[in-house]
């Protein structure tokens, strides 16, 4: 496949609010089931080991017209729950046999109960991720949560989920995470070769494709991107943060790039790189997944920082390891976690002399001119700064 073929395919998957890829996958063999998950993180290994397809649900984007969903939400609540409801109420999510709601914020938390009321025939689980990182405390609780999920999924699948199957799935996702790490490393090294507007689409494909296929796709993209020489521009290198839940429209990512920024790290699809290194695939699978979550996972506003000194370390590491020159805070409007986290991170960046800028968006933001202007000014100021 050529680079264009790959990107076009990813774009088609991304734009398909009917989840055709999921429907096709299910139709390919009798009895197949698909389980959706909301941001930020769920252990997809459990779904995969049950023989089901994990499907990432990240709202309706800017393609979906939200009519019914708006009737459930006040104007001061972000967009993602209403467009997700729209997807559900218009039958677009009928291909899902269940939906997982990880503990990201009160809005998603409440949506889990709304789903129970509105979609009575579907499996719904609120997955409480631990905010205590001690193995015996938060870890034990999390293992029990995962065990409960495992039993539920086994019931849905009509068969047990063995440790061996779980370990095999961990191995599959290790490979996927490795490919994603390679993708991120490559982009940081040669952002002109792998623009974020493409990388984003490649990541989003991971929401609907089986992980094995997605891993191949990521690698194919990397090979194709490297094979084609693209012009290198004198852009500012930035980390984009705050977009871990409701997603910015693709046009916004493009606008930032057009404005003169190379995004060299981000938090768009945290789930795919949440566990930072390889999870042992030969131990007690739930224990290993738990340890990876507790001790070796990404940081985001929905996750508690145990100590003051921990705050901002993840972002600083992103900046440092990717060689970024600044940070763009891009958060959804009305997003309490991202917007409350922001001043703390900004203070830390200021202390380290790292420039930043901030704006808000909605998944259906149409007007890009102000964002382009702001990102452009920011890129210029970074370049001036580094020239000084």
């Amino acid at each position, binding site marked *: 496949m050529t680079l264009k073929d790959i990107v076009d395919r990813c774009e088609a998957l991304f734009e398909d609010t009917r989840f055709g890829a999921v429907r096709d996958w299910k139709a390919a063999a009798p009895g197949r089931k698909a389980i959706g998950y909301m941001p930020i993180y769920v252990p997809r290994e459990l779904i995969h080991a049950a023989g089901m397809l994990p499907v990432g649900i990240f709202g309706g984007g800017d393609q979906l017209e939200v009519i019914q969903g708006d009737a459930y*939400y*006040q104007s001061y*609540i972000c967009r993602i729950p209403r467009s997700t409801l729209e997807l559900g109420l218009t039958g677009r999510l009928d291909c899902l046999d269940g939906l997982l*709601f990880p503990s990201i914020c009160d809005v998603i938390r409440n*949506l889990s*109960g709304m789903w129970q009321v509105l979609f009575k025939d579907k499996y719904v689980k609120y997955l409480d991720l631990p905010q205590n990182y001690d193995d015996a405390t938060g870890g034990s609780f999390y293992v029990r949560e995962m065990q*409960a999920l495992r039993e539920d999924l086994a019931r849905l699948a009509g068969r047990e989920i063995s440790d061996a199957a779980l370990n095999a799935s961990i191995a599959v996702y290790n490979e996927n995470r490795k490919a994603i790490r390679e993708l991120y490393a490559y982009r940081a090294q040669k952002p002109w070769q792998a623009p974020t507007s493409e990388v984003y689409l490649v990541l989003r494909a991971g929401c609907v494709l089986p992980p094995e296929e997605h891993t191949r796709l990521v690698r194919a993209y990397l090979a194709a991107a490297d094979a084609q020489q693209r012009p290198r521009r004198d852009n500012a290198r930035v980390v984009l943060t705050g977009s871990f839940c409701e997603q910015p429209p693709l046009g916004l990512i493009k606008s930032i790039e057009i404005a003169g920024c190379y995004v060299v790290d981000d938090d768009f699809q945290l789930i795919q790189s949440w566990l930072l290194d390889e999870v042992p695939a030969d131990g007690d699978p739930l224990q290993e997944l738990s340890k990876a979550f507790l001790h070796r996972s990404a940081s985001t506003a929905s996750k508690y920082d145990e100590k003051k000194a921990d705050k901002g370390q993840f972002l600083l590491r992103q900046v440092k390891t990717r060689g970024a020159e600044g940070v763009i805070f891009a958060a959804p409007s009305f997003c309490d976690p991202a917007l*409350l986290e*922001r001043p703390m991170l900004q203070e830390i960046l200021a202390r380290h002399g790292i420039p930043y800028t901030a704006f808000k968006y909605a998944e259906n933001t149409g007007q890009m001119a102000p964002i382009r202007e702001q990102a452009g000014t920011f890129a210029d100021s970074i370049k001036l700064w580094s020239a000084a």
Partner: protein
Amino acid sequence: MSMSANPSGTTPVRMMPSSAAPKKPAAPVQKEDAMWLQKELVNGNYTELANARQLGKKVSATFVPGNLNELLMCFDFARSLPETNALQNGMRKKSGKMIMDAERDGHSEDVCTYVKADLGMMLQGQVGPTGEALPTPDVLLLSYTGCFTFMKWFELVRQKYDCETVMLHVPYQGEGHVTQSMRDYVVKQLKENVIPTLERVSGVRFDIDRLRQYMRESAKAEEDLVWTLQSAKRKPSPIDGYFGAVYYIGPIFTAFRGTPEATKFYATLRAEIEQRIRDGKGPITPEGEMPEEKYRLVVEGPPNWTSFREFWKMFYDEGAVVVASTYSKVGGVYDFGFRHDPDHPLESLAEYCLGCYTNLNFPQRIDMICKYMDEYQADGLLINSIKSCNSFSAGQLLILREVEKRTGKPAAFIESDLVDPRYFSAANIKNRLESYFQMIKQKRTAAGAH
């Protein structure tokens, strides 16, 4: 969210040491005796906080839902509740500026205003609602019950003041019940993290018998609180279960649960209500007895504090009594039988945290409201949707639809904020309420005609 309100809002607050008996000022505002007692408790607590350093007391801060007041008392902490500070500042019309100061300091206009009122208060030199400077807490007990914003709130405070923070992660009742796993998780955190940290910060050794003793007091007070709130099942209701209940829940939801003073408060309150019932009286309002009960409502969502009296007046002027509210359950749902249990102290603390209203899932919240509609013979449901509070507000329109569907009673929706005066539009709310009362009346007439 939260409690301990002063209905007058504008009544000047006089400072006094907590031991001195307050003298009733000749205020035009009508209050039950228990309300004076409540005010005395609240002000006494602010004085204690203000003098904590001189008294050699360590200071804790914690949130209302899932607060572990009995446990904190075991370590002799002076106890601050930032939500209550924000609320009190809201009632005293001080919160607007605090919020704007916090926004000028870099906080988004989109986020919870309780947080911003608290941070704004710090920017203004930590001067508390009563005019006394509040000390920086020695420990932030982050009871992560029913709201995610709590976590960010204390991380922000910690960032500024470097306070020791201890997290108590209380799992959400996603499936509509408390599991053994959830209980074990909370108890384990209490044993392994919370208690050792409180011991270290306070220098006081944990004594479980002391905890049991406080819990015994809590249970007594809880019994009388429940009796009081349930007295609204009568017709006419002797209390207002929302505006009035704000006073009733004050002590038990904040720094007083477990103290003999709180027990006394609830006994006094109960005796007063008993007397009201004997006299056939309705609720007392800031302007005196409520003459006639015309509408009985259930309310979902917190009140607005910056225009609390004006808001309340829109109800009593029309003869509308709130017979039950979910807000009066944010610091503990006691009316379905839960009591602090001195025989199982830690388990019961866990159970308490897990059971707070905003820790219930949507089907539970809907069931609870429908039950109230039925048991309190309400004419309808009113939702006061709070801009600040995703925990309460996200999804309330579904609650409205479901409750209407299940009970056949009319529901109405209004919007305001807790402590941000910019989001209280009196004219809009009044209009909405008036047409709602009309609707109830019409429904009643139509039903009577059949």
